């Protein structure tokens, strides 16, 4: 018996051009993302990764192509609104994401929008903060947090929506190794479908199973490219030498 799996996110022939520009950021892009896939994306700046994420969330409307999320086609704002709460997008700049005065307000913003009572939203926010080990930040003023704290709070505010899919847009940008490790630890305990953009290869391989790249507005699967980096030691390795 053959089991046909439907992808949680399917993009078919998506093209997108920013208004006032002629260059196609996304050009007939196809992507199938299945449940529990953990995929990393590593590609040069300006190759359309962020646009891809915003297209999945319905924040950028493609010029042509078809988007299916959880097996259903989505194209209107109302349809996107229904699926948005199940897909968590973490923005590149945490300051964009944390707009409430205090941390607990921010984490509870999503649950409140989902219709939870203030009491339940507060409980959920506290649980998430505790799970990420930042319970002490609860009453903190958002704009006074450090870069790493902001990133963790932004992740908490996304996780509070209990998303089935997590889209992370350069989650490690500007973070030190300690916070990166903490992030890896957290992300590896989550049972979600994961699509991560990052420029840090070690980080990507420690949280994902496959690494894709993007070129000319299309995704290059890992059998087409193999980004890799390795270290080894050998005699006279400290002198300039060639690998043939």
């Amino acid at each position, binding site marked *: 018996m053959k089991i046909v799996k439907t992808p949680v996110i399917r993009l078919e022939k998506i093209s997108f051009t920013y208004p006032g520009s002629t260059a196609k950021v996304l050009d007939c892009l196809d992507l199938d993302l299945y449940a529990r896939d953990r995929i990393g994306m590593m590609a040069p700046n300006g190759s359309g990764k962020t646009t891809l994420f915003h297209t999945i969330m319905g924040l950028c409307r493609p010029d042509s192509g078809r988007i299916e999320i959880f097996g259903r086609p989505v194209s209107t704002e109302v349809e996107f609104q229904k699926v*948005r709460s199940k897909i968590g997008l973490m*923005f590149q700049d945490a300051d964009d*994401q944390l707009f409430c005065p205090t941390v*607990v307000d921010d984490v509870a913003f*999503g649950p*409140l929008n989902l219709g939870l009572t203030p009491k339940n939203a507060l409980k959920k926010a506290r649980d998430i903060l505790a799970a990420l080990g930042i319970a002490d930040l609860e009453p903190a*003023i958002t*704009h006074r947090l450090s870069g790493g704290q902001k990133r963790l709070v932004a992740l908490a505010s996304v996780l509070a*929506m209990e998303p089935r899919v997590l889209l992370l847009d350069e989650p490690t940008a500007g973070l030190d190794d300690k916070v990166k490790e903490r992030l890896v630890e957290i992300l590896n305990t989550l049972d979600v479908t994961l699509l991560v953009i990052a420029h840090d290869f070690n980080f990507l391989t420690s949280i994902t199973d496959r690494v894709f790249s993007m070129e000319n507005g299309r995704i290059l699967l890992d059998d087409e490219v193999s980004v890799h980096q390795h270290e080894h030691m050998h005699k006279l390795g400290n002198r300039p030498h060639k690998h043939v």
Partner: protein
Amino acid sequence: MIDEQLALGDSFIHRLSPGVRVVAALVVSFSLALSNDFYVLGLYFILALILIGLASLPPGAVFKRLKPMFLFVLMIWVILPFTFKGEAFAHLGPFTATRPGLELCLRISIKSVSILLVFIALLATMTVAALGQALHRLKVPNKLVFLLLMTYRYIAVIHGEYTRLVRAARFRGFVPGTNLHSYKTYAYIAGMLFVRASLRAQRVHKAMLCRGFNGRFYTLESPVENRLNPYFMAVIAGLTLALIVMEILGK
């Protein structure tokens, strides 16, 4: 950027519910602004000082916050007495100070300083976040409350962007002077700030959409329980009423 130093204390005033403090500040400052009798104004001033005392604020910090107001009041003292018509009080060279002009100046000074003191004692002693929640609970329209909270949240970010731009200009040898080049540079920086603020607003809106924002705002209710709330409100209301009666009888 915005220091909330005064909000950190733990005095009698700090422990009162923010909502009660907002209403009290509103009541006192309104009736104060509408009073004219010097004795009544003096009593309001003493009330303002008592409130400052109850909030146990350091006098230095309070004075620092009053400074901009003093400049404004000083300007009035320089202009008003000499331009107001009425009985002459004193001559200063070619200028004549009038008695009604001086009285008006004194009134404006007492009123503005007292109102500011009341606001420092009652409102500056809470965080902007608490103020936003209090206004929300007092049924101030959501849009206004969130305008306040968003401004508070992002003014530091925009200030950070401004300092980054100025620093970038300085690193490339920019020295501000009185010339067209300097004006142009500042105009570019200001323009850039607007562009960045507007782009950021779009990104923030997108982030809000991603978390299920549908045009309605909800807040976490966490009223401050303090059995002294009603008593404080009653005392303030009683004192204000007494002062209003004094004002009316004094006429």
